[in-house]
């Protein structure tokens, strides 16, 4: 023993050991949450700053960001529903077996004998739907408040990547139950992936260059929807796409922080009403300190230098807001799940197509276009739309109206006008296509390339483009053009989705209501 150093401060070692043992819980908490109980503003700030999960937030939040009308909580709804799908999805994986026919039986088991399985599957389905709606509305919100502008251009692009990943997650989940709905939606989806063949066939180069065939082959792992396709969709659904989504979401949030929180109008301090009496403290002076990262970054961080600041501590103000929206999302999910079951049709039968075979609702607008040209409706127009959306921040470099709905007064009227025009255009084009048919009927044997170039989808796109150009000239503003175009596309998307969902019956014929559908 003589060689070992000894400490005698706290009495005999055995006594100190007993003392240490007693203090374990308190010390454990102290080491977990450094800085003590967050009972002061400083303490709370420190708590946010030190916590790996919370430090994504800024320590202080602008009062503008906390206004309900700024975001309507749409981003949080999306994130919340994603978290719900992750939790419920992982639980469902305990019982789900990704193999044809067995998959269907396992869903039936989940429905009938797995404890909470029926309810959890409903929640999973509803959360996925809410996530899709949330993503779309969140995008619309960011667009209509012009929040994509400098310095947030790239984050908007990330958002444009998150949109197809979200839809992809939902769509890959569609196949897993292995019912008729799933089987035929995926057959159609896989053939849409193959639809570039429509173009290569028309050009006569499919033999040499067949990107469509390759896409389908990689998606299905075969030439038909079978066990390979199921395992691939499963892998995409539970691993690849969630990983990609998490990665992109991390970048998305990181950029929100780095780009200075939510976009605000330049005169935000004038626009904000005085704080509630209970809201305390409100920070009004600009932080004076310029911190330069590792002393090599030269510019000042964007959050700095916009006096007066008008912020409140994130904890608790922002956290209450976030928690409230999160719980609201959960409430929506469980409430819907209680009353409306996730669909499950007959077991997949590769010999008898569903009639009508309908994709998930958010793709029914595209399916409406696909009913004229598979390539244009399924790949061409979605790509054009996504690309156009992604480029918006680089085309609209104006500054006025950032952070305000529709860019301030007058914008609302423009959006309403554009939506009306978009509505009229899509209704006229749809009515013509439904009542009189399209090129194929008017001119049997018309070249396929012409149909690809000239179909209801492309006609609509061009009509909307013309409107947008007219608006740019009329209001002498690129922002006005973007607003007009976006409103048009939204009107088009909604009308096509509604027609595809409620007014299409067997053989994709138009029916005023499902009661008119002929029997089988």
């Amino acid at each position, binding site marked *: 023993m003589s060689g070992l150093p000894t400490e005698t401060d706290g009495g005999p070692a055995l006594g100190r050991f007993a003392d240490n043992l007693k203090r374990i819980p308190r010390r454990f908490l102290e080491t977990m949450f450094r800085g003590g109980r967050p009972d002061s503003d400083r303490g709370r700030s420190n708590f946010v700053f030190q916590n790996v999960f919370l430090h994504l937030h800024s320590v202080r939040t602008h009062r503008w960001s906390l206004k309900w009308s700024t975001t309507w909580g749409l981003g949080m709804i999306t994130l919340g529903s994603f978290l719900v799908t992750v939790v419920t999805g992982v639980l469902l994986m305990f019982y789900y077996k990704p193999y044809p026919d067995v998959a269907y039986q396992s869903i039936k088991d989940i429905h009938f004998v797995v404890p909470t399985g029926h309810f959890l599957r409903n929640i999973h389905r509803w959360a996925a739907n809410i996530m899709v709606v949330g993503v779309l509305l969140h995008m619309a919100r960011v667009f209509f408040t012009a929040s994509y502008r400098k310095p947030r251009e790239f984050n908007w692009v990330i958002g444009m990547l998150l949109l197809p990943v979200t839809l992809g997650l939902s769509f890959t989940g569609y196949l897993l139950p292995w019912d008729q709905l799933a089987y035929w939606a995926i057959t159609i989806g896989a*053939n849409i992936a193959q639809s570039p063949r429509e173009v290569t066939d028309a050009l006569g180069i499919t033999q040499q260059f067949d990107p469509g065939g390759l896409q389908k082959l990689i998606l299905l792992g075969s030439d038909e929807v*079978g066990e390979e396709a199921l395992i691939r969709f499963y892998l995409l659904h539970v691993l690849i796409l969630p990983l990609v989504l998490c990665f992109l979401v991390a970048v998305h949030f990181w950029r929100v922080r780095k780009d200075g929180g939510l976009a605000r109008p330049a005169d935000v301090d004038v626009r904000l009403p005085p704080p509630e009496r209970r809201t305390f403290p409100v920070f009004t002076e600009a932080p004076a300190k310029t911190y330069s990262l590792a002393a090599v970054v030269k510019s000042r961080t964007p959050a700095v230098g916009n006096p007066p600041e008008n912020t409140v501590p994130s904890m608790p103000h922002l956290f209450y807001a976030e928690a409230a929206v999160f719980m609201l999302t959960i409430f929506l999910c469980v409430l819907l799940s209680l009353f409306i079951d996730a669909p499950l049709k007959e077991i997949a039968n590769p010999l008898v*197509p569903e009639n009508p075979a309908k994709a998930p609702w958010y793709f029914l607008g595209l399916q409406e276009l696909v009913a004229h040209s598979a390539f244009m409706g399924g790949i061409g127009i979605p790509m054009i739309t996504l690309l156009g959306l992604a480029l918006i921040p680089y085309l609209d470099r104006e500054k006025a109206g950032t952070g305000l709905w529709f860019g301030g007064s007058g914008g609302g009227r423009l959006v309403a006008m554009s939506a009306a025009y978009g509505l009229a255009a899509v209704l006229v084009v749809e009515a013509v296509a439904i009542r009189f*048919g399209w090129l194929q009927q008017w001119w049997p044997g018309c070249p*396929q390339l012409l149909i690809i170039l000239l179909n209801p989808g492309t006609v609509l796109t061009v009509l909307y483009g013309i409107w947008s150009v007219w608006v740019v000239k009329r209001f002498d503003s690129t922002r006005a053009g973007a607003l007009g175009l976006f409103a048009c596309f939204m009107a088009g998307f909604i009308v096509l989705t509604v027609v595809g969902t409620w007014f299409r019956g067997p*053989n994709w014929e138009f029916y005023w209501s499902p009661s008119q559908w002929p029997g089988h």
Partner: protein
Amino acid sequence: MSQEPKPSATPSRLDPELTARRDFLGTAATTLACGTCGFALLGSARLPKVAVLPSASKKFKVVLPPSLLPGQPFVPPGRSVAIFKDGDSVHAISTICTHLGCVVKPVESGFDCPCHGSRFAANGDVVRGPAPKALAWLSVSSAGGGAVLVDEGKVVPAGTKVSV
């Protein structure tokens, strides 16, 4: 943005290096590292593309019912092909819609697709709807003993009839 700082005699460590020195070793190492990773990625990207199709054989033998009338389609159970017999001449038309792969249904006038309303004539030509091309004619040959051998995987030019 603040003003550009004036150039001073003593360079600040915040100033960018005026001229980058040639760093052959560094460039070569980085390039090679990127190249190697890229090559590995490219190689593994080949994995998802199947080398052989796992689907069941597309060739099958079938005996046509003797009462089959000319112009009347015969769809062997479990297959997506309609076989026609007119006297001795036999031909087979795929019942996979060329639009989005649904199974078309033989009807009086030819074939109807339930998914997006494509209609085809009895010889497979598109009559209406979004289908970009005619239904494929498939290879048929005599298998002896009144049976025919159909190859769903082999497309032949439209109008090819085989006598059995």
